């Protein structure tokens, strides 16, 4: 579920860009391919039908591709395409944006010689690293950041660049590395899966880069290029622009790429980079058929067993995962390869008051469920899931609205006029016409006061 949510964020960002910027983006075939992958299936179908067809397509021809009853999907797909300026419409015909069409054709047929997919190094690397090393490196760098957020004492603190990113994104607050504290948004961030977390940080980086005078288009080009690189292959820095070289330094800190030292002329993408825009390797699902598409690393991340008596057994010794579990589980005992605890009312309420929602807790438990749990359907015991939701409802027994109570109207007519006005403004929170009282919100009160004064002065 996180990838669709993530797609909406990067999509929102892309849709927010003005048309000339988007057209500059489409010059790079790798970007076109990455954007194509981010689109919903029906939009992809439409693009493919128009891709190699030089003449414009009549809008009604598209109806032939759509099943009866899926017209909302068709409408949504077209809206998305319009939002990203991918199609041009004139007199009932549609055609693909020229630059995008050329870029995507290039990406698919490998036509023009271009650097947007990254230039692999053709010289031998004296200090060659293998995939296992890259995975470990990525894991360590990423966990360093997460540990810092959770506050476990590892003694190592991430670089200033990372710290300022955490501050800007609202995940942590504080001025010096020693007094930085995690925020509610930070807690929610911790419970997301890795891919969603990376995209959150990268989108923040994108926002920050505009302030730092870095060209957003080049930043995006580089990000989408990373998504198409091959794991285990080293790439040369020759194709990168100065902006992108600066990015490379920052991305090293997040563990997205590996560079032996900053003067190296080559870099290796890690798994965090290569899974940026792909479907697989991102989320675990309970369906057995997905297991084959999931890489070995992801299978190992399922380690939590949740029983119907609310007891939790987590087969992990990673301090980070134990710290995250501690957010909502009351951990009772710790062994060499496992921690055990219980989900209790206290522990869930503590999490809820820190800003974590019941849905996030349930999503976390689902994503990190031990392979043994997949034998039962549904995955998590319904008793526990329902009870976590009930505990959240318990916290919300009172609904509070600040505002003003109006009473003592001299006549029914007066009441009707003022209540009607409040109703039309949409600021009425509660009313009882037979008692001639109503309650308006704090924000709307000023307008009601002005209206009443005008009426009184107008002598109505």
């Amino acid at each position, binding site marked *: 579920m996180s990838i669709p949510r993530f797609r909406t964020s990067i999509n929102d960002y892309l849709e927010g860009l003005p048309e000339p910027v988007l057209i500059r983006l489409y010059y790079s075939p790798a970007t076109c391919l990455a954007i194509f992958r981010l689109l919903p299936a029906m939009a992809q179908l439409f693009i493919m039908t128009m891709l190699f067809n030089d003449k414009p397509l009549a809008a009604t021809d598209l109806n032939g591709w759509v099943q009866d009853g899926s017209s909302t999907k068709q409408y949504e797909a077209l809206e998305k395409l319009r939002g990203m300026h991918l199609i041009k419409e004139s007199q009932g015909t549609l055609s693909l944006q020229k630059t995008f069409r050329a870029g995507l054709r290039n990406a698919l047929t490998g036509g023009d010689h271009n650097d947007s997919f990254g230039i692999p190094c053709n010289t031998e690397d004296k200090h060659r690293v293998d995939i296992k090393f890259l995975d470990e490196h990525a894991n360590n760098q990423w966990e360093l950041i997460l540990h810092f957020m959770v506050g476990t004492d590892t003694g190592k603190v991430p670089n200033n660049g990372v710290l300022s990113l955490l501050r800007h994104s609202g995940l942590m607050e504080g001025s010096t590395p020693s007094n930085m504290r995690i925020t509610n948004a930070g807690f929610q961030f911790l419970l997301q899966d890795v891919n969603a977390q990376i995209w959150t940080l990268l989108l923040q980086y994108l926002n920050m880069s505009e302030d730092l005078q870095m060209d957003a288009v080049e930043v995006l080009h580089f990000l989408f290029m990373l998504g198409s690189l091959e794991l285990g292959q080293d790439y040369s820095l020759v194709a990168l622009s100065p902006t992108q070289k600066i990015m490379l330094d920052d991305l090293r800190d997040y563990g997205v790429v590996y560079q032996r030292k900053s003067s190296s002329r080559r870099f290796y993408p890690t798994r965090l980079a290569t899974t940026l825009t792909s479907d697989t390797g991102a989320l675990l699902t309970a369906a057995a058929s997905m297991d084959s598409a999931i890489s070995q690393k992801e299978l190992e991340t399922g380690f939590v067993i949740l029983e119907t008596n609310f007891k939790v057994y987590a087969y992990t010794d990673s301090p980070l995962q134990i710290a995250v579990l501690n957010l909502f589980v*009351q951990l009772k005992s710790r062994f060499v390869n496992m921690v055990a605890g*219980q989900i*209790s*009312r*206290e522990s869930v309420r503590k999490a809820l008051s820190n800003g974590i929602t019941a849905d996030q807790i349930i999503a976390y438990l689902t994503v990190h469920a031990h392979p043994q749990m997949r034998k039962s359907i549904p995955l998590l015991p319904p008793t526990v899931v329902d009870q976590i939701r009930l505990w959240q409802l*318990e916290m919300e*027994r*009172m*609904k*509070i*609205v*600040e*505002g*003003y*109570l*109006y*009473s*003592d*109207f*001299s006549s029914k007519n*007066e*009441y009707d006029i*003022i209540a009607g006005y409040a109703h039309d403004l949409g600021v009425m*929170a*509660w009313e*009882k016409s037979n008692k001639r*009282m109503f*309650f308006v919100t704090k924000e709307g*009160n000023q307008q009601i*006061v002005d209206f*009443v004064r005008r009426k*009184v002065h107008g002598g109505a």
Partner: protein
Amino acid sequence: MPRAVKGVLVECDPSIKALIISLDSKNHNIVLADLDDEHLVIEERMVEYVKRELDSQLAENTFKPAELDDIRRK
């Protein structure tokens, strides 16, 4: 001219409303108006106090398995 009183509208179910009214019966400084079965207007400054008292009263009536273990150990 109608009268406007500044306060906080509370929307809740009847049992919670009864709890708030009983809290109010001691000092009469919480509830400003009793509107109907599910709505009350209370004093703005007392909102946090009401929430805390509500929490503690509801918590009193819940069973905590952890306490049971501690009691057994003693």
